[in-house]
């Protein structure tokens, strides 16, 4: 995405940025021109969003201007204090993260935004807030963009196309990308993060539509830069939940910290409080409980019993570099009342061969494979439709789930 810088006399750096992008290099202009615009969802995307961007120098004044599409007035919000990326670069100082947390937004509304840093403005972009009602929505899920940069860029372009086509054809809006982790190879390598941020710009539509991201930490995303890129508080453990609409909730878990301690307690409380307030409940995390290639993570011991107790609909996993779908699993056997596990990551990383002789993949061997892909999840009041979209647009796998019935409480049954 090339920025049209509005400040007079800045066409030269703009051209440099463009040339840099064409050369496939990480851009650096030694100024405060906003780049890497991203919308991050962490809590209540119907009314809140974090907007972040990168500047090469600290600058002095940064703000976000935004307005709802039908509003006339723009609102300006000063950014939080600039935060210099941890890590080092060979040829220049580490750039800075600018961020603004927007609150009190209107649900299901198009918000136009412009980032400004010391008088230099980004292009105008927009994003949609999540609805708070029960309208059908869609979500992209994928993981493992850590290698295969060319494929990563192609998948990003494909996701931007999918968002646009879904919108134009009147199908449920794709609201966000849930990324299951392993964004880059070495989470302490700032250069790799900056390349990822460059590449993430390709998910932006030609009309300026930003694709919000819901980020899970992978084992390669070690270190403090992950929290800076996605504007988590310093030291945050990256497990949280949010509503995608009034009836679909997504919990993001972190397999790279204790899975048995506070996180498990939090998950139990979260599911107890919110599972049956929502028709659909999903969890995403990096290392699989039912892996197609590797060995099970702590998720199997510590989270799966809760998934089964609260009958979540879908668990979205990454890390294995394959396409995977299990049959419904409960108490370590195939059971129609169980939980379906999908994913394993194909946002760029080289693909492997799924081990379909494992007991939990034998029935769904045809739904497992090896190709760069993203999952398109569409929620309505009758079904959850899941499609695996390969690079190129073909549907590799498609299945649907029906809503579960909430268990009747003792009081209700009396």
């Amino acid at each position, binding site marked *: 995405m090339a920025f049209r810088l509005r400040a007079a006399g800045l066409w030269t750096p703009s051209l440099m940025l463009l040339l840099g992008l064409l050369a496939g290099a990480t851009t650096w202009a030694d100024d405060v021109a906003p780049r890497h615009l991203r919308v991050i969802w962490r809590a209540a995307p119907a009314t809140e969003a974090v907007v972040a961007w990168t500047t090469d120098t600290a600058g002095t004044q940064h703000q976000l201007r935004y307005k709802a599409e039908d509003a006339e007035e723009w609102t300006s919000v000063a950014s939080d204090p600039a935060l210099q990326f941890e890590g*080092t670069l060979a040829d220049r100082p580490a750039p800075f993260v600018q961020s603004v947390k927007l609150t009190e937004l209107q649900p299901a509304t198009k918000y136009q935004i412009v980032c400004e840093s010391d008088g230099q403005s980004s292009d105008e972009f927009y994003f949609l807030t999540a609805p708070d009602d029960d309208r059908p929505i869609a979500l992209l899920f994928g993981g493992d963009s850590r290698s295969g940069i060319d494929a990563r860029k192609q998948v990003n372009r494909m996701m931007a196309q999918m968002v646009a086509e879904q919108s134009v054809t009147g199908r449920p809006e794709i609201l966000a990308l849930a990324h299951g982790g392993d964004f880059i*190879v070495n989470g302490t390598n700032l250069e790799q993060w900056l390349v990822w941020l460059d590449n993430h710009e390709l998910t932006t539509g030609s009309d300026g539509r930003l694709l919000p991201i819901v980020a899970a930490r992978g084992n390669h995303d070690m*270190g403090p830069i992950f929290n800076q890129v996605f504007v988590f508080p310093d030291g945050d453990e990256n497990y949280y939940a949010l509503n995608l609409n009034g009836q679909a909730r997504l919990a993001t878990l972190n397999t790279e910290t204790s899975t048995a301690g506070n996180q498990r307690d939090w998950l139990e409380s979260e599911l107890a409080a919110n599972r049956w307030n929502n028709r659909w409940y999903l969890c995403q995390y990096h290392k699989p409980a039912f892996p197609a290639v590797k060995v099970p993570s702590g998720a199997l011991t*510590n989270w799966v019993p809760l998934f089964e107790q609260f009958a979540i609909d879908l668990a979205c996993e990454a890390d294995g570099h394959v396409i995977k779908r299990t049959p419904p699993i409960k108490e370590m056997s195939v059971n129609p009342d169980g939980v379906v596990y999908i994913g394993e990551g194909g946002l760029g990383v080289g693909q492997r061969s799924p081990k379909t002789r494992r007991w939990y993949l034998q029935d769904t061997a045809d739904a497992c494979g090896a190709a760069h892909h993203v999952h398109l999840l569409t929620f309505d009041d009758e079904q959850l439709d899941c499609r695996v979209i390969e690079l190129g647009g073909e549907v590799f796998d498609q299945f649907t789930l029906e809503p579960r019935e909430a268990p009747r409480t003792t009081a209700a049954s009396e």
Partner: protein
Amino acid sequence: MANDNRTIDWILRVAVALQCAGYAWKVGVVGDSPLLGWLWEPRDVGGLALGETVGIRICQAVAVWLALATVSTLVSPSRLLLAGTLVFQIVYAAAAWQTHSGFPLDVTWLGRGPLRNAAEALVPYFPFASGAARIAAPLLLMLVHWSRMRKLLGVAIAPLTEWIARIAVALTFAAHGLEALSHHGGFLDMLIVATRNVLGLRLPEAVAQGLLTGIGLVDLAVAALLLVGRWRWVAMYMAAWGFATAAARLIVLDGYIGWYEFAVRSSHWALPLVLVLAWRLARPSTQVVQ
């Protein structure tokens, strides 16, 4: 070989055999290892880009080698197989280094400056430190099993052998101590799940973190003590702790994973135990010099 020293020889043989068997299963059957990752990952992310099929075949060949080494080490140790095992352990650590599979030690607390830059440059080599005892075990067995020096000197193990063992164990304990001080999520889970499985109690994460801090400090302390003096109680503690932490895998992980995760850590208790026995036997013995 004197009868007293046969014990040391057999401890190393059992430990190396267990280690070989564990890695043979992990690399060849389970197929989830940094080695495979290194072989098949593309070059731009540190891999050798050999492709998954070639990578798996190489891993299976390595597993066959390790299986042969397992049997041979117990029946009749072979220099060739043990040397191959030593090379495997070094390559395995190198693979973890190249694929960033080692523990991501946090050094941001060092601030911004040359100290942190130096620490960040060292962190990728962490697998060599945490795996030092595993790397050293086959080498030590070769040095002990075919040692002429110990017979000549009348000692349980030759000075060079002893120092290799001391440095390897110290590095392993120091590396694991740093991981414990960083409150490694896997270590926290091990404490919490082991407490739940063995005692039926729920260990709060805050308590587990406190325990890990203590464990980490003790690990660092005993690592330092092992290098500065020949205290048998230090080596004895390390042998006991090395065994306990390896055996914890049997309790916490599913059996088909737990057994090989225990086996590959055999050197963590065997090498300190060798030092305990060596220092017990470290006096001139007429039997030895005969």
